[in-house]
């Protein structure tokens, strides 16, 4: 599904290399987790995949189902099936959450040559999905993420993911700031989307999310590289011992 090869990325504005040769393949139907110390480049990787400005790819490639992503506009990547649940979801005053969702869903359908959803069909689907995530009608009416609590913002990301049904879901610390119940809701939301045709890349610092979303593969990222890859037991090792041993091992 997602294939990242030797990806090197520096900041556009300054001469700072952040990703230093990332290699990573997420197969369809699989959940991969990325863990790693603060500042190791996890969010940068997710932004570069989603198409955020400000980064320069100096080497390497990233493809989704064989299509080169890095040349595309963010909206084109989204239409191909890339979805990033942001570590810090953005507040957009003045744009209603519902309008935002409908515009996004229909823009993607249009880009894929599908028919737009009628207002009533859309409403039906949103209401149903919002309900399972315990997002109430009032939150749907409010401007995008404005005045949402940290946990509400994260749930709102999962709602968008559920509505857009992307092929490749990248979740950047979607568990941070969630209480135990909300974590369960989010994990259930993700698990509901698990499917043969869909890949997941879950960035997290904690084992707890991975208790609910059982990963197939766990990667450790440090200083802009994947330094170790293993099974779910790797996450437990990090939880118990921190990164020191792993970092020492590869040094």
């Amino acid at each position, binding site marked *: 599904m997602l294939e990242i090869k030797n990806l090197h990325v520096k900041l556009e504005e300054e001469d700072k290399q952040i990703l230093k040769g990332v290699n990573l393949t997420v197969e369809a139907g699989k959940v991969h987790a990325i863990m790693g110390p603060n500042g190791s480049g996890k969010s940068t990787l997710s932004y570069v995949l*989603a*198409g*955020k*400005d400000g980064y320069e790819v100096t080497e390497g490639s990233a493809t989704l189902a064989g299509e080169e992503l890095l040349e595309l*506009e*963010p*909206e084109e*990547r*989204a*239409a191909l099936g890339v*979805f*990033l649940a*942001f570590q810090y*979801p*953005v*507040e*957009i*005053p*003045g*744009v209603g959450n519902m*309008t*935002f969702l409908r*515009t*996004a*869903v229909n*823009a*993607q359908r249009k*880009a894929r040559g599908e028919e737009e959803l009628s207002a009533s069909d859309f409403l039906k689907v949103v209401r149903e999905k919002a309900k399972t995530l315990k997002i109430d009608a009032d939150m749907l009416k409010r*401007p*995008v993420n404005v005045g949402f609590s940290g946990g509400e913002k994260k749930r709102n990301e999962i709602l*968008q993911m559920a509505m*857009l049904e992307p092929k490749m879901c990248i979740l950047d610390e979607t568990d941070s700031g969630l209480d135990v119940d909300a974590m369960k809701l989010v994990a259930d939301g993700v698990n509901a989307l698990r499917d043969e045709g869909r890949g997941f890349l879950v960035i997290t610092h904690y084992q707890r999310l991975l208790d609910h979303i059982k990963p197939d593969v766990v990667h450790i990222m440090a200083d802009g590289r994947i330094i170790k890859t293993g099974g779910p037991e790797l996450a437990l090792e990090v939880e118990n011992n921190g990164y020191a041993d792993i970092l020492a091992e590869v040094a």
Partner: protein
Amino acid sequence: MALPELKQSTTEARLASLSMPAGGCLEAARRAAISRVQATGLPDRRDEYWKYTRPDTLTVAEAPKAAVFDSGEEPMFDAFDRIKIVFVDGVFDAAASDDLALEGVSIERLADLAGKDIHWSKDIYGVLEARGQSPVERPLAALNTGYATDGVVIHVTGRPSKPINLVYRHQSDSSDAMLHHVVKVDSGAEATILENGPAASRFSHVMEIDIADTGTLHLVRAQGRDHELRNATHLFARLGRESVFKSFTLTVNGVLTRNEAVIEFLGDDAVAHVAGACVGDGDFHHDDTVFVTHDAVNCESRQVFKKVLRNGATGVFQGKILVKEGAQKTDGYQISQSLLLDDDSQFLAKPELEIYADDVACSHGSTSGAIDEDGLFYLRSRGVPEAEATDLMTLAFLAEAVEEIDSDDIAASINDRLYGWLARRR
């Protein structure tokens, strides 16, 4: 005191190009207004109040031409059930207008007052305008009082079932129109006035609004899409106790627009909101100049102005809140913001507070900025194409002003026009 030579000659030339409609109960007010113009002279670029906006094309004797633009669009409020009063290049068009009879309101033509010696409007016509001449002179408004050829005189006595819609049409590329409207709202009465369309190549507009205790007036204006228009409009509103005045103005296009609003609170517990949204492209200069005077207790005023500027367009905001001694518990809010879609456009703002009471809450803010990049990326990452995402962010920016309109239907029609303007520029 003698006027500067250039000001004197410009003023004389302009006065000589006009003739005062004689007769009737308004003649004295007209003569007095003309004397005011003679005393102050017409504005020129050296006047502090015209620092950001050049008045010369508004004061020159012959109006610059403005091409008539066929938008192919249905006039703004055609879908609404309303009383329609049509002016073509500033001339009343009886055939195109509805019958003016409506329960709860009396509507007459200003031109018909020339034949009447007694009329209630005598207590308002030129009176509110004259009050509005200090502390800042507004000679263009006085000129209008002196020479306006027509207008409507509206007395709201009840709650008319539909809005009164003044529809302006621009047909001649050299039209120069001057309309003066008077609105009196009785105690407990409530009405909505809608104004829309390009009125003339050059348009001078005055509306004097007197709202009695507990009266309410909603005013929504849309100034037409013609590109070369020059508009100088003035609202003078005087508010009684517990009265409400809400106005919103939409401007798209037009080379020069100066919209002045002068609001005076005379009774306690009243509310006045003046809002405006404008979108302009290239040769576009838009000036909102607002003066709110609080001379009563516990009144609320809100000024909300948003401007979207592209391709070297210019936006101006001069807004003042004056809180007089004793006007305690005043709640004054003022915000003026521009969204600059490129580096060539500019926004010039002069927000002012002058407060002589100690127990008041007044705030003002003025900002100027570009589209929020993070918001834009967020929308695009969800699949919304850049152009559409930009429009969505732009409409969101304007929303705070449009939300000042109480009627959801009217607000929706304003949003449609804004969206159309943006979509045409994708």
